[in-house]
């Protein structure tokens, strides 16, 4: 089972992960964290191929995907 976790303490809502994801697994959400940033959310987990791109491009080391 693939799991994608977004660390709401570290995430600053830049949406780079959303833009980089080739399968549109992520999307900017309406969830706002304690610092006022809008977090991304997983909307299409089935499409995830574990390419890890979201993990590699995150500036804040805030997203994690279960490894292959």
């Amino acid at each position, binding site marked *: 089972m693939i799991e994608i976790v977004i660390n709401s303490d570290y995430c600053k809502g830049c949406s780079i992960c959303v833009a980089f994801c080739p399968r549109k697994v992520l999307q900017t959400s309406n969830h706002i964290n304690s610092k006022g940033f809008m977090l991304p959310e997983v909307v299409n987990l089935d499409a995830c191929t574990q390419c890890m791109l979201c993990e590699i491009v995150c500036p*804040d080391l805030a997203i994690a995907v279960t490894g292959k």
Partner: protein
Amino acid sequence: MLKHPMLKYIREEGPAGKRLPFILCPGCGAGQVLNYTLHAVDEIINQPGVKKEDFVFISGIGCSSRLTSHYLNFDSGWTLHGRALPVATGVLLANPKLKVIVFTGDGDAAAIGGNHFIHAFRRNINITVICVNNGLYGMTGGQVAPTTQPFTITPTTPYGNVEEAFDLCKLATVAGASYVSRWTTAHPFQTIKAIKKGIANKGASFIEILSQCPVHEHKTPVEMINALKGMTVSIDKSMNSNKIPVGEFHFAPRPEWTERYEAIIEKCNERIS
């Protein structure tokens, strides 16, 4: 809870409290560069015979230099504005076995540290310089940098920049760097590969990473990353293009400073005994 794999190289907190999240603004390219660098270092550490404690990170002052302030679970030094390269040189003079990685920005490397920049490459001392180039001074408020394009409006060039920009890769090449490449934050895998090659190169390596400053450019990070992708072209297709070439510019290993000095030490040793 599932955690980002690179957090194993980060001090999330210490006795005096939390250190993360990073101080960087949302969508800052410097954070991405740290992520890429840690991926490259991780791959090298997983090779046999490489020890984590051999890595040393040095930086100067600026947004990109903040990466080594107190976040890394490596030996690191957050030094003076522009002076990362001399400090890194000193580290290698004392212990040439260390693998020294320098984070620097365009202002840190090319303006205040310009003199050290050319001389470190001339000496070809064994450092890997990762320069996060966002074309401006982010930490002080977005002022003009030596890498800012002409006519750009910034807080200190309100009528447009009258100066030409430095091409840092050309500068590093003519100064004597033995490995030079340029990528952008929009090229994660290429950047990781370049950093790995830079660390493996015994000599001075220069990797310029064009990066976004969404705050001072007043754009979203994603817009800027897309723009970076759009304004660059691979070096082999760059002949008839106005776009900025990216790729590997120069790779010519040559004797490294401490190697040459080792020969002097050996000679003195022979003469004495």
